[in-house]
């Protein structure tokens, strides 16, 4: 009843092609943005920022990156964490070695470096597909962290490649509280998400989806394989690179290449599977789900242990996490392959009719 589109007629193609053509969607978005930009900073605790909100946003960004490559362009990648690593280390080096370089530029340059590396490792995609390509991305995932540690110049000659990012300051304004860092990350992620949405509904987005759905037909229609696939790798790696830079500068402060391991790549893949492959909204939903799940599990386990007076060690918690993750992946693939985003859509469609059943 609240969600009806009746009466909302579009009188121009422009209106029909708008990002949020339905008025209720626009209102909903405005509310979410208001909450995110205004209410949360005022109400949330430090813990909430540091442990949940900031990593959630950063992983959403990485998930958008992977979604562009795997969800929209159909190129399966198991190396997204490696590209995050490149972005983090590159941003660190630009920030460190170019005096006076604004931090945001360092982020962008970090992303661009990751994009270049992404294109290099994406070249095999012109000849191989499917999970063969996944194995190729595994090569990136194992090689890049090794390289980043071995060549100590990257980490300014620290042992085991640790990089310590300096606190963020833009034009003299220091982002030294969790709330401020949260707002910065939120702004960057929101803008990049908007850009992603734009790309996906434009020519390049259609080209990506065409390559994913049937590449022979895509060529026949005039889409250039080389250009389209490499652009997907470039854009995806850019997003992962910026996410990596934010991970180092705005979240942990100090990272090492080993943090960006295969496990993290799998996590990001899980985010897009659970959230919805081929959906920008899905990237956010999936990231939220996967970020919150360990915390929820932990709390639940502790509560159960207290209730029944059991002792348990952290090993059990992390093993349980694996079990739950694995089961969830299978569950989503079987029950709702299009993930939470599709469930959201179904929910909206039900809202159209509520309170009537049909």
């Amino acid at each position: 009843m609240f969600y009806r589109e009746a009466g909302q007629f579009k009188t121009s193609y422009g209106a029909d092609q708008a990002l949020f053509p339905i008025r209720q969607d626009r209102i909903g978005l405005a509310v979410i943005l208001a909450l995110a930009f205004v209410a949360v900073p005022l109400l949330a605790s430090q813990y909430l920022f540091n442990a949940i909100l900031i990593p959630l946003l950063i992983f959403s960004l990485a998930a958008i990156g992977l979604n562009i490559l795997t969800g929209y362009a159909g190129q399966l990648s198991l190396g997204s964490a490696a590209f995050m690593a490149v972005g983090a280390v590159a941003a660190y080096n630009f920030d460190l070695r170019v005096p006076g370089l604004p931090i945001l530029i360092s982020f962008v340059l970090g992303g661009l470096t990751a994009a270049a590396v992404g294109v290099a490792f994406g070249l095999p995609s012109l000849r191989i597909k499917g999970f063969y390509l996944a194995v190729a991305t595994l090569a990136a995932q194992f090689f890049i962290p090794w390289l980043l540690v071995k060549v100590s110049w990257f980490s300014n000659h620290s042992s085991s490649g640790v990089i310590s990012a300096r606190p963020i300051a833009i034009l003299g304004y220091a982002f030294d509280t969790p709330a401020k860092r949260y707002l910065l990350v939120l702004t960057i992620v929101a803008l990049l998400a908007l850009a992603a949405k734009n790309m996906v509904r434009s020519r390049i987005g259609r080209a990506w989806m065409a390559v994913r759905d049937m590449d022979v037909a895509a060529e026949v229609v005039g889409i250039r394989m080389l250009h389209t696939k490499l652009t997907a790798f470039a854009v995806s790696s850019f997003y992962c690179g910026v996410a990596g830079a934010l991970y180092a500068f705005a979240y942990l402060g100090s990272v090492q290449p080993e943090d960006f391991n295969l496990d993290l790549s799998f996590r990001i893949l899980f985010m897009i599977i659970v959230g919805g492959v081929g959906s920008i909204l899905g990237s956010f939903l999936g990231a939220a789900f996967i970020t919150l799940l360990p915390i929820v599990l932990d709390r639940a386990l502790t509560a159960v242990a207290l209730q029944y007076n059991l002792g348990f060690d952290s090993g059990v918690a992390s093993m349980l996490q694996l079990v739950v993750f694995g089961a969830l992946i299978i569950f989503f693939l079987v029950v709702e392959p299009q993930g939470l985003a599709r469930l959201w859509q179904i929910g909206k469609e039900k809202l159209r009719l509520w309170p009537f059943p049909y």
Partner: protein
Amino acid sequence: MSAARNSAEVILSVDNVSLAFGGVKALSEVTFDVREREVRAIIGPNGAGKSSMLNVINGVYHPQQGSITFRGEVRQRMNPHRAAVQGIARTFQNIALFKGMSVLDNIMTGRMLMMKATLIEQALYIGRNRREELAQREKVEEIIDFLQIEHIRKTPVGRLPYGLQKRVELARALAAEPVLLLLDEPMAGMNVEEKEDMCRFILDVNDEFGTTIVLIEHDMGVVMDLSDRIVVLDYGRKIADGLPDEVRADQTVIDAYLGVAH
């Protein structure tokens, strides 16, 4: 169908094309031409190599021997992208639509070559990209109107019945404003009404836009009604070439279809 067409120039010429997959000979020394604005049918029993012929013209397969001359340019190896740039569009026997996209998006991919906005412009959705998206949308809507598929424009293509999918595929091919349109069994699997609709569309395309059409089809009634000239293939060889009435009466053609050993 019209006398004027018989004196038109040759737009496509297939010269001595041979194609083999491993030991299987799909095409053997096939030669024929296609005149501007005509409707040329390629017919023949199953396995005669008709689809392979289209694939060669279009650049999806590369012949071991022979060449294709399109609009004056001789080519031994075409690739699909070049074919598209030069104005060749086609539909496929087993519907090659992008199943994950809506009808509108599928047809928009047909306009791909006409859009020039850069990546940054697309990411910001400003200026040239915005204008192009709107302009192309208008063009695409004209085609949607022409093929009467307005009611399904936002539907994901995978959910449509077979007949409508075929129509959408035709729309996508038309969206490219092609000079040469290759249709691979556009009527396959359709009932009488759908076939009549499709025939009407094809004739309209040929009339209104002047598009040259090369058509593979099994329904002889359709072929005889629609085409100006016909090529007959059997086991990869050309066995007849000419006006519909000539071909219909040709004994070798009749034998081929009846399965007489030769």
